[in-house]
């Protein structure tokens, strides 16, 4: 579905133009601060060029054929939120929260405070055009007994998913986002902001099983307070392209950030993870592990930065990226970076590997009667085991193993 009126991109016309963004926001009766935020983002969107490979996080991601404005926003897009909410908390649409006197102030205070609406092309598109935004709010000490599930189901065009999570002190919440779309061309530009106060525990699981013609660009950023623990796990299995920036601003003393990613590629799929572990708090900890297994002519890219600021004395960080090539045409680029600005760190490890399946292991399995595909399936399951077995993925683990297996049953190996 191409919006013919929006094809004259550079002039900032069509659905992404400030005037249209403003009119649509007023039409929905949004508060003045939000209308202004959208207008500001629309101006940033018009002024910001598409990212090019000259920008380090975009080095291996070819976007020259992509014209955001040729995708008509699906204004009716809204995911289904299912939650059992503890007293005083909230899980539902941002629009609903803005109508709720007990929540509106919290949304206004935190929205856009973690990811500025002006900071990049896709983020600006989101901040200008988002719809169906989700707000999750756990009050001080509040515990969501069961995971909040966010079901995203999209058709063609463009959707701009938005989520704001506020976890007050010593609260706990787990959120599972299930991303699904049809086979129609779809552009997804998403933003997730997480604010975790002292001692809060937040778990976010992204289950990316998009349709074959979906290109996703998402930024997930958390602010992790004193002794808070934020875990983000992403499964990239569907879609044509998934590019996710998963970032943690580890501000509080003793704060912890954990990031896990699994990508299983086939055909011409492109999976691209960018991570940031920005340590500011003393004795803060972080751990990143991203694993990709790639069949067909699929591709994975990893670029991650571990930064330990001068204030982060006694910090400990680990960053690992492993890529398993299941075919001669698959490709992986990996670039973990350490920026250590204090000499007082406990440990800072990083590692990256790209390589084909171990021929000896393959022969070992085949010498026991497993055909090549069965042997590769077992090796991939073993490769993912360290991440799949992680508590961060616990809510999805069984279902994920099944889907990994189903995909490998037909993948070009």
């Amino acid at each position, binding site marked *: 579905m191409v919006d013919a009126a929006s094809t004259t991109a550079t002039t900032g016309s069509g659905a992404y133009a400030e005037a249209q963004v403003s009119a649509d926001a007023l039409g929905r009766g949004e508060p003045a601060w939000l209308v202004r935020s959208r207008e500001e983002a629309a101006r940033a969107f018009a002024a910001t060029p598409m990212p090019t490979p000259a920008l380090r996080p975009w080095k291996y991601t070819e976007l020259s054929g992509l014209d955001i404005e040729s995708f008509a926003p699906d204004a009716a897009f809204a995911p289904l939120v299912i939650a059992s909410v503890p007293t005083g908390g909230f899980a539902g649409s941002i629009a609903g929260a803005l109508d709720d006197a007990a929540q509106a102030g919290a949304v206004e205070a935190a929205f856009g405070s973690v990811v500025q609406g002006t900071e990049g092309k896709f983020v600006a598109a989101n901040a200008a055009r988002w719809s169906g935004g989700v707000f999750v709010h756990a009050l001080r000490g509040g515990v969501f007994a069961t995971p909040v599930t966010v079901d995203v189901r999209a058709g063609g065009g463009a959707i701009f998913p938005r989520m704001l999570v506020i976890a007050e002190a010593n609260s706990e919440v787990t959120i599972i986002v299930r991303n699904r779309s049809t086979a129609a061309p779809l552009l997804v530009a998403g933003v997730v902001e997480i604010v975790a106060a002292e001692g809060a525990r937040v778990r976010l699981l992204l289950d990316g099983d998009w349709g074959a013609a979906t290109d996703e660009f998402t930024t997930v950023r958390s602010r992790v307070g004193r002794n808070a623990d934020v875990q983000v796990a992403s499964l990239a299995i569907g879609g044509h392209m998934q590019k996710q920036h998963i970032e943690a601003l580890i501000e509080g003393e003793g704060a912890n950030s954990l990031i896990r990613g699994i990508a299983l590629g086939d055909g011409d799929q492109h999976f691209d993870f960018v991570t940031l572990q920005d340590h500011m708090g003393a004795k803060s900890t972080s751990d990143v592990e991203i694993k990709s297994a790639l069949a067909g002519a699929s591709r994975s890219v990893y670029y991650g930065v571990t930064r330990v600021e001068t204030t982060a004395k006694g910090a400990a960080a680990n960053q690992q990226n492993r890529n398993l090539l299941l075919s001669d045409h698959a490709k992986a680029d990996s670039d973990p970076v350490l920026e250590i600005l204090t000499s007082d760190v406990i440990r800072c490890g990083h590692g990256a590997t790209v390589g084909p399946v171990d021929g000896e292991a393959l022969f070992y399995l085949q010498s026991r009667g497993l055909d090549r595909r069965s042997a590769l399936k*077992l090796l991939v399951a073993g490769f993912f085991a*360290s991440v799949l077995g992680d508590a961060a993925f616990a809510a999805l683990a069984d279902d994920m193993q099944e889907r990994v297996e189903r995909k490998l049953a037909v993948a070009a190996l």
Partner: protein
Amino acid sequence: MSKTSEPILEIRDLKVSITDKPAIQIIKGIDLMIRAGEVHTIMGPNGSGKSTLASTIAGSPVYTVDSGEIRYKGCDITHAKADERARDGVFLSFQYPTVIPGVTMVNFMREALKARRGAEVPAREFLGELRETLAQLKMGEEFARRYVNDGFSGGEKKRAEILQMGLLKPDLAILDETDSGLDVDALRTVAEGVNALRRPEMGILLITHYERILNYIHPDFVHILVAGRIVRSGDASLAQEIEAEGYDPILKALGLLEGAAAS
């Protein structure tokens, strides 16, 4: 072990080189016949081609058959894939079993048994057979929950190989230096396991550097492999001769002992 039993393995004038280095021929013409119920031992000094022969019979892609033929139960398997041979009942106990992180022994063995039988094996039946075989090898059940060969001691690796042999019930078992790296107690456990799991219809090719294991597994035939050729064949007394005198007299007789030629 009757002279009239069916041949399990027949090797005729086999020549084998390294796939990546075709100029290097390791096996330079071997003939061998193993009948059901027989135990054949191949002994030889380091580098004589023992492991190459074992891997080639199992179908390792590391080696290429230049000429000759390998027949298994009457069929030419010279160019069959490793997994086809295994499903037909060829089993190689590896000298250095491969570590496969993240894959549990139990999952691996269930997949292997499914492949060997050509059908899904009901969980109860599988676990019953697994427990029984573990007990025969004096292995605890927790063993099955560990990742394949991951962190196994030398003895555990070899026992895990024999465990797989016991479950897969091959008709040809090639034991490649199953005795190496084992202390006396571990050697006895593994060898007794092999004996317990032997079946009359199975042929065994036992590859070893030392005579030690033959105290437990008694060979019907002993072949001495030197520089890619079987230079002598005999009965168990040949192994005792090697134990007593080493390989030097044989190498000297063949003019292959460089040090001896100079002295």
